[in-house]
């Protein structure tokens, strides 16, 4: 399997995971969307030196991985491209902020290092939370939730189309590179000279196909509203889920829970 095939199957397996009938998948999409946004908002709002407080937020993805029966390792593998990129934020902090703010044993930790770690953790947590939303909620349901939240219809449609476009672009890339390799046997990679026309072709073709897909949607009555298979009413479990998480996340954000726990153990 080459890289593109890998990317396609990763993408599709995320898509089909979202379609499965597991407990996490059945939570009302609006509630999952709300909690994800809340979580990211609270996470990002931690002060830049408050690493311990931020650690508490790990509870959310940790529990979700458990109850969602999702593999953490698999997610790291899938996010291997994204995670290093988001970790770059804050990498320069240690060079600017050199004042020692705390000590671990004998080693002084500068504000820069601390704020860098905080920023990285924030970024990773936000990515993980989004990932958890995506693998447990199909794109149609996410769009439905956005629609329920009164997002402008054109933006919601845009989200759906971009999502579709990714798979079209990947599939088109696969076709073009396969066609290339079949007529350039024994060649590793793609010759520099062929890159221009190849990439051009790929973009044109995938745009063309994306347009036809959109036409096909319009021909079958798509007017910007999303309809789900089942009527998705909010169940009592959903409310409970929402209340518990909202409370927990607020507590974790507002109170130094980890410090309390630490002190309780040390005592």
């Amino acid at each position: 399997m080459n890289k593109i095939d890998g990317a396609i199957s990763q993408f599709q397996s995320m898509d089909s995971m979202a379609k499965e009938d597991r407990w996490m998948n059945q939570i009302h999409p609006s509630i999952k969307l709300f909690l994800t946004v809340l979580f990211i908002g609270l996470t990002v709002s931690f002060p830049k030196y408050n690493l311990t407080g931020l650690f508490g937020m790990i509870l959310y993805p940790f529990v979700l991985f458990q109850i969602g029966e999702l593999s953490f390792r698999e997610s790291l593998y899938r996010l291997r491209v994204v995670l290093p990129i988001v970790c770059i934020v804050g990498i320069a902090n240690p060079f600017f902020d050199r004042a020692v703010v705390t000590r671990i044993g004998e080693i002084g930790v500068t504000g820069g290092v601390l704020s860098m770690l905080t920023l990285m953790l924030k970024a990773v947590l936000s990515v993980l939370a989004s990932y958890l939303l995506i693998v447990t909620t199909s794109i149609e349901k996410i769009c439905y939730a956005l629609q329920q939240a009164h997002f402008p219809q054109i933006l919601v449609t845009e989200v759906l189309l971009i999502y579709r476009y990714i798979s079209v672009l990947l599939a088109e890339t696969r076709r073009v590179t396969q066609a290339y390799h079949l007529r350039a046997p024994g060649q590793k990679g793609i010759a520099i000279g062929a890159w221009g026309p190849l990439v051009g072709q790929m973009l044109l073709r995938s745009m063309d196909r994306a347009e036809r897909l959109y036409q096909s949607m319009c021909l079958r009555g798509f007017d910007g509203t999303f309809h789900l298979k089942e009527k998705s009413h909010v169940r009592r479990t959903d409310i409970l889920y929402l209340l518990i998480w909202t409370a927990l996340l607020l507590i974790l954000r507002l109170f130094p829970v980890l410090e309390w726990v630490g002190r309780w153990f040390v005592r």
Partner: protein
Amino acid sequence: MTEIEVKNISFSYEQKIPVLENIAFCAGTGEAIGLIGANGAGKSTLLKLLVGLDLGYTGEIRVGDVVLGKKTLAAVRKKIGYVFQDSDSQMFMTTVEEDIAFAPRNYGLSREETALRVERALEQVHIKALRDKSIYKLSGGEKKLASIATVLSMDPDIILMDEPSVALDPKNRRNLIRVINELKGIKIIASHDLDFIWDTCERTILIHNGRIVCDGDTEMILRDKELLEANGLELPLSLYIRR
């Protein structure tokens, strides 16, 4: 009762070279029309214009008593099912079932009715087993059948098909002929499979270089060797064998 009236349509893509010139015909209720012509004759373009995928033509298209135009687009499209030549462009949902349910849901049918329609469409083209399959993982012919099902579930008054028999094995092809013959509304089928046209359409329109060369009884046109060859086509295979 719905009919289609096409009045002197001319059309060209971005350059000035005309792709369709002075196309005119009428189709009455229940009529099945075969659209034949060499590669690049303009068959797909004509079908696209009929569903309003491009409104940049001169002339007039009337569906029922509505003139096709920007404002009437939604109303007209509701009546028309269109099977793309390229089935990859037709389906966009994740599973076959979801895709077939797309149109009925958009047209506000109840859940029960939608489920019924999906069931019937799956059954009609014999792809019940593919219900939960991802559309990316279908074979060429399965894709074609599924894309036909996505249109059958709309229960359209008018059905336009671009090369529906391509990629189908003999059995599925025969089944599709049966399904088409059982459909009530207007059917317009563009195809190079003249035997397929022979079996499904009583009337045929022959297009050459964007103009209608001949419009009439299928049997008469498909038996006319000189006419077909003059327009870049050949006799249907079954007629060869019979000779």
